[in-house]
């Protein structure tokens, strides 16, 4: 049931996230965006690999670092830029901002942990309604500190929720390395609840995709939870300019763990360059169009008065 991946399309998707996030960090100092952001640089193969296996009706629940998941789900770069700019045309009309997105069956929230029961409940609802859809929830290593995650794993297993838990372990929660925050092992946390788990230490989309595909096939075949633990690398800061890691270590990650380089090496140069030109143009255009989009009307807020 897993899709046969089109290597060019996978490269296009990884690159689209990369250019989007680079544009965000590049343009933030100019003041065009408002508030905060958490970029997905370095982790792109996770979203692309997992969501390439999602079926059209499957539900995706994401977290504060959600841009990559949103774009891999099929979300429009222009609408996401507009949301980050607080425009009326944004994914949520500028109400949610970077961390709070909803479009079709995609939902994200910026509070850690609380999305996990939410996704579990969504999965159960689909099962109870007999829709055949599953839920996929992305969480990070930092979120493993939240107790509600384990309440959710317990109930997801007891009630056989059709859900895939995807842990993206980038080994750092904001500025706290996982050695200071995550005791023991991650995979066994799922296995303790009777949830079988695949663990990968890879930035290669062609390794991540089949693992996710296998787990989602199992979930769809017989509703029950599964987990995918992806050890990954965050190239950028937690938010903007707040990376406390040694720059030598980050450079090493960029050299050895870049999903764009790993997968790009498989493609003929001519086709790769054509995709690069196409994506650069697409993201540049999306940014420019969003810049021209209208702001929401402050008077639309209930109780608003003219100052």
């Amino acid at each position, binding site marked *: 049931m897993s899709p046969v991946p089109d290597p060019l399309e996978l490269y296009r998707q990884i690159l689209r996230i990369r250019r989007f996030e680079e544009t965000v960090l590049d343009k933030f100092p100019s003041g065009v965006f408002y508030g905060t952001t958490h970029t997905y640089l370095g982790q792109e193969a996770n979203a692309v690999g997992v969501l390439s296996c999602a079926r059209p009706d499957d539900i995706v629940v994401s977290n504060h670092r959600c841009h990559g998941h949103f774009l891999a789900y099929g979300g429009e770069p222009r609408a996401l830029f507009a949301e980050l700019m607080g425009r009326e045309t944004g994914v949520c009309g500028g109400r*949610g901002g970077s961390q709070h997105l909803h479009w079709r069956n995609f939902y994200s929230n910026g509070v850690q942990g609380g999305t*996990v029961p939410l996704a579990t409940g969504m999965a159960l609802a689909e099962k109870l309604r007999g829709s055949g859809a599953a839920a996929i929830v992305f969480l990070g290593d930092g979120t493993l500190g939240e107790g509600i995650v384990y309440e959710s794993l317990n109930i997801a297993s007891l009630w056989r929720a059709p859900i895939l838990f995807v842990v993206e372990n980038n080994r750092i929660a904001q500025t706290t390395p996982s050695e200071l925050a995550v005791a023991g092992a991650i995979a066994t946390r799922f296995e303790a609840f009777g949830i079988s788990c695949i663990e990968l230490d890879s930035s290669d989309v062609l390794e991540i995709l089949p693992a996710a595909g296998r787990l989602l096939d199992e979930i769809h075949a017989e509703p029950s939870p599964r987990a995918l633990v992806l050890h990954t690398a965050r190239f950028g800061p937690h938010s903007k300019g707040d990376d406390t890691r040694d720059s030598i270590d980050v450079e090493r990650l960029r050299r050895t763990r870049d999903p764009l380089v790993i997968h790009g090496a498989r493609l003929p140069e001519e086709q790769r360059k054509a995709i690069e030109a196409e994506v650069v143009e697409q993201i540049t255009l999306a940014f420019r169009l969003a810049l021209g989009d209208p702001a929401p009307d402050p008077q639309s807020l209930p109780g608003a008065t003219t100052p």
Partner: protein
Amino acid sequence: MTTVLDALNQALHAAFQADETVFLLGEDVLDPYGGAFKVTRGLSTAYPGRVLPAPISEAGITGIAAGMALRGLRPVVEIMFGDFITLIADQLVNHIAKFRWMYNDQVRVPLVIRTPMGGRRGYGPTHSQTLEKIYLGVPGLRVLAPSSIGDPGGLLSRAILEDDNPVLFIENKLLYLLPVQHPAGMEEFEATESKAELLGEGDSYAPTFTLALGGAPPAAITLVAYGYMAELARQAALRLAYEFEIFTELVIPTQLAPFEIEAVLASTRRSGRLLTIEEGTFSLGWGAEILARSVEALGSGLRAARRVAALEVPVPASGILELQALPSVEHIVQTAKKMV
């Protein structure tokens, strides 16, 4: 005689019957136990598979129910004791109450969280509190509280079946065994019913009742109370009238948030004096908000204003201490006497 417990139980059965998307999640809700206070009794027998017996995971259950609500079901959550609503705070405040607005009106969250609240049963500091004031004023969250006066079952039924927004439904434990009194049928009182018109959402389905003593002279004080305090205020209103010739009107809201003050103002314009009664602690609470809004609206038209509330200590387990800590008919009578 129908008790409030009967009415709520019947409303749940009727909701399950009427709409197959209604589910219930809670702890110890399976028959024969049927919930710690028996509000869910019979449901798991009549509707197997739609009553989901949960582990002791209030936050998890609430989050799961929210996910179910976002995906087209109408779940009801029972939190066994109101004291435990602290455990669901993140779910309520940062998720459930926000989704509809934060996602730009693209989703609905038809979710009811019911919980028994309040003291006078000797359960001590962590099983006797009145904590709903923590959740009053959270944008996007409706807080309802039936009393024995009115139609508690109808209120729950409409919250489950008709409300597409999240509701926190507060059931004072002492209401459960009281008979439901229809306002129109009360012997000593003449009742009027109003429904608040709320900013941005039209009329609320939750009524406010205003009770005036039948055939009495104009009221000198407006009493405002909800939940079980409405019953204490009703008793106090009779004592004030018969023993002290102090005549009152009693305003009983069933929707605590978002709050519409108009019924309180209408009565207070007649009486000139306002006394709020709540079982929560005194400071920074529900009564304070009502007094503040009344002062803003009435100015010097408000001649006296007072609050009766719980003492600012944890609710004691000892019966004699608990009685002293929580508002009583006597507290209400004595406070009212000082106002005229």
